[in-house]
């Protein structure tokens, strides 16, 4: 067997002083052969991305320095290369695609020219030949009508198309190594399935070595030949994918895989019969009305005749891809945006048309937890201030509100003393717990979770899901759970509603929707879920 394309031996990368540990990456060794796809799996802070960026030489030079080991790319140690030599290697011998195709492309440059830039840097080809090569590369990644897409700007393309542009760019010079840093994490599940298939296909055709960074064991099951699991900067386990996925040896790997929610819904208790806490009938939301100069403006029917009911103690999942209208429904129900038509009954009273003054007393009945715990807490206020602000707006005294807040901190599994700290002193999972406590402080009847666990690591995700299930039972909450993640939906929802282009295409008990989907789109979604053949941890 020939030498591996990429051989990382005993690599250590230092963190700047004052970080939580001295080394971002410690004594990491693994290799990637030609024609092989190696997944590096880990949670945030595991050092998986730092490892990938070290190979590319893209770490900030002063903050993250390789202090030990070697990184051999076709036998050449990239750690010892001069800057110009590294520039030649990047693009020619190794290329990288990134997590966010939305931001990874220059917004003011035509996409064809951005691909062509690769040839401009590394080859002496003239403009006409460059263009021909770019079009060829665009065809290679199955982009439709390359000749017209060539002149598009990134914002005119969909997320999947942009990621194809990135892949085309990475592959123009046929590098020996492709590094993919969470390339499908920001994409919809059906797009993700297509991009994964494309990467796998191109890798086979070109015989490339691929280093694939991911946090998602579903993705690993889908494409990996070999797997390295990283935790706190170390590789805790590595081996062939089927061995790791079926018989993980390291406790951390076992824990990670057990945390992956199963696609098989657990048996659920029927909630006690009670009048619905939330009832939505014929909800419509149309964005973009015609204004003074708006004659040519496009209207978007973001929600179309949506009906739903949620009973106390019950969770209704709203599942769909981006643009399906699931978040619009949530925002209308909380009245963050005004619905165009329809009724929203909370505890029997219609709030769809109330003006702000009449709506105010009803606001506390319905609370929402958002996706990004890093941005949904005011960084200048202590978490205690954030939690008591709501109840105090409704006339509760500071002392009473604070006493309640202390209790709630315990409910969500945090120390009451932590109320005096600021949001940046907490981890993502802890912040999401704080957001839940903040919502609960209002004593709502309905809790909306808008992708509330999507930004969290799987192990943390499982804990927050448990917490949500726990508070729902404890406070008899009606929960509307908005998510794009079918695995999460399978585990927490009693009933599921599938949305597409603003319309509800299927609605039913979770077990029926997953076990016997009626609509083609539901079936397509389920088929696209990465690693669907893997059972992972059974629902417990």
């Amino acid at each position, binding site marked *: 067997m020939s030498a591996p394309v990429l051989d990382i031996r005993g690599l250590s990368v230092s963190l700047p002083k004052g970080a939580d540990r001295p080394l971002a990456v410690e004594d990491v060794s693994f290799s990637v052969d030609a024609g092989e796809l190696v997944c590096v799996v880990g949670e945030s802070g595991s050092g998986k991305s730092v490892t990938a960026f070290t190979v590319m030489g893209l770490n900030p030079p002063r903050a993250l320095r390789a202090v030990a080991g070697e990184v051999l790319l076709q036998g050449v140690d990239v750690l010892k290369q001069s800057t110009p030599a590294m520039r030649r290697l*990047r693009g020619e011998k190794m290329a990288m695609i*990134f997590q966010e195709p939305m931001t990874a492309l220059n917004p003011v*440059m035509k996409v064809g020219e951005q691909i062509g830039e690769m040839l401009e840097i590394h080859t002496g080809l003239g403009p006409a030949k460059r263009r021909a090569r770019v079009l060829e590369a665009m065809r290679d990644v199955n982009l439709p009508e390359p000749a017209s897409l060539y002149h598009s700007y990134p914002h005119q393309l969909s997320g999947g198309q942009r990621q194809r542009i990135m892949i085309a760019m990475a592959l123009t010079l046929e590098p020996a190594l492709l590094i993919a840093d969470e390339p499908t994490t920001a994409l919809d599940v059906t797009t993700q399935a297509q991009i994964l298939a494309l990467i796998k296909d191109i890798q086979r055709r070109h015989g490339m070595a691929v280093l694939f960074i991911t946090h998602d064991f579903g993705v690993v099951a889908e494409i990996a030949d070999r797997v390295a699991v990283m935790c706190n900067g170390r590789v805790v386990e590595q081996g062939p994918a089927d061995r790791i996925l079926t018989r993980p040896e390291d406790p951390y790997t076992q824990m990670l895989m057990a945390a992956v929610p199963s696609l098989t819904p657990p048996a659920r208790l029927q909630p006690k019969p009670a009048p619905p806490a939330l009832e939505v009938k014929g909800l419509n939301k149309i964005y973009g009305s015609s204004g003074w100069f708006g004659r040519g403006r496009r209207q978007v029917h973001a929600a179309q005749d949506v009906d739903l009911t949620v009973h106390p103690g019950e969770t209704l999942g709203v599942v769909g891809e981006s643009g399906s209208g699931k978040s619009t429904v949530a925002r209308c129900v909380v009245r963050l945006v005004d619905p165009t038509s329809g009724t929203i009954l909370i505890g029997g009273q219609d709030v769809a048309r109330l003006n702000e003054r009449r709506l105010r007393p009803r606001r506390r009945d319905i609370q929402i937890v958002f996706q990004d715990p890093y941005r949904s807490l005011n960084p200048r206020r202590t978490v205690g201030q954030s939690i008591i602000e709501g109840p105090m707006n409704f006339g509760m005294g500071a002392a009473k509100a604070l006493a309640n807040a202390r209790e709630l901190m315990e409910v969500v599994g945090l120390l009451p003393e932590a109320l005096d700290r600021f949001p940046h002193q907490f981890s993502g999972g802890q912040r999401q717990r704080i957001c839940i406590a903040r919502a609960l402080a209002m004593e709502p009847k309905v809790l909306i979770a808008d992708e509330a666990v999507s930004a969290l690591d799987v192990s943390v995700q499982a804990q927050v899901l448990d917490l949500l299930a726990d508070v729902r039972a404890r406070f008899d909450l009606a929960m509307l759970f908005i998510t794009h993640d079918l695995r999460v939906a399978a585990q927490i929802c009693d009933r599921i509603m599938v949305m597409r282009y603003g319309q509800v295409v299927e609605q039913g008990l979770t077990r029926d929707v997953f076990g016997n989907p009626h609509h083609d789109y539901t079936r397509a979604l389920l088929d696209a879920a990465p690693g669907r053949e893997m059972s992972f941890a059974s629902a417990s």
Partner: protein
Amino acid sequence: MLRYILLRVGATVPVMAVVALFVFLMLRLTPGDPAAVIAGDYATSEDIARIREQLGLNEAIPYQFVTWIRLLLQGDLGTSIFTSLSVTTLISQRIEPTVMLALTTILFSVAVAVPLGAIAAWKAGSLIDRFVMLFSVAGFSVPVFVLGYVLIYVLSMKLNLLPVQGYRSPWQGIGPFLAHITLPTLTLSVIFIALIARMTRASAIEILQEDYVRTAHAKGQNEFTILTRHVLANAAVPIVTVIGIGIALLIGGVVVTESVYNIPGLGRLVLDAVLARDYPIIQGLILFLSFSYILINLLIDISYAFFDPRIRY
């Protein structure tokens, strides 16, 4: 694109109308009799009556306004009280030096400030960066007239490199033109360089953190091209905006600079008219400068769509 331009052009019409109304009312709403104010302390009542007649102040206000607007639309900005020349003529006589000074100042400032700001951002925290920032603070702090006289003293009087004062038209020869325009341009540019360099640095620092800059590095692109093609191309909108704001500042700066260097431009005309209380000239100049400013901002608005393909209204 055409729709966008037409909308923008259309939007300037109400702005111009409001400006015209204000300029018109400025004279009429002055407390007391404007004719008496214009005529000064030693005027006889005949003088005052003559000025009232000349300015049409005896008519009803709405009638005055309609007449004034009608003349305005014909390009008639009124007649100077003391020189009896039309304001349009005065402006056309004085406009060339000011436009030339504005152009050289903007071109020189942008040519110096944008690279300076970009380098400061690229080497943020380094000695170069600190020097640029220090210069920038100093540039804001030194008054135009102080800087003007210092430059004259050093470059013209001590070193004898450049003429002290005056203006030569470029049509009479590019050499004398450059010799005369250099000092005023330097003087006026300092504050712009400070302003534009700061803005360039701030936006470039932000853009250097963007994912697409990382993509460019991953392609193996060199630092210079990354800085120009990927960073500055994306920083263009804020930089152009600050240039637009700068042009408003320029109008104030021109008055002082033209006085210091004895340049017969619009700035001097403003000063002379104010000292002589020649209201029609002041009024005409304010209107002319406001409209120029609106037009420049219109051009800047339209240039946004050129610099950033995402901007489409």
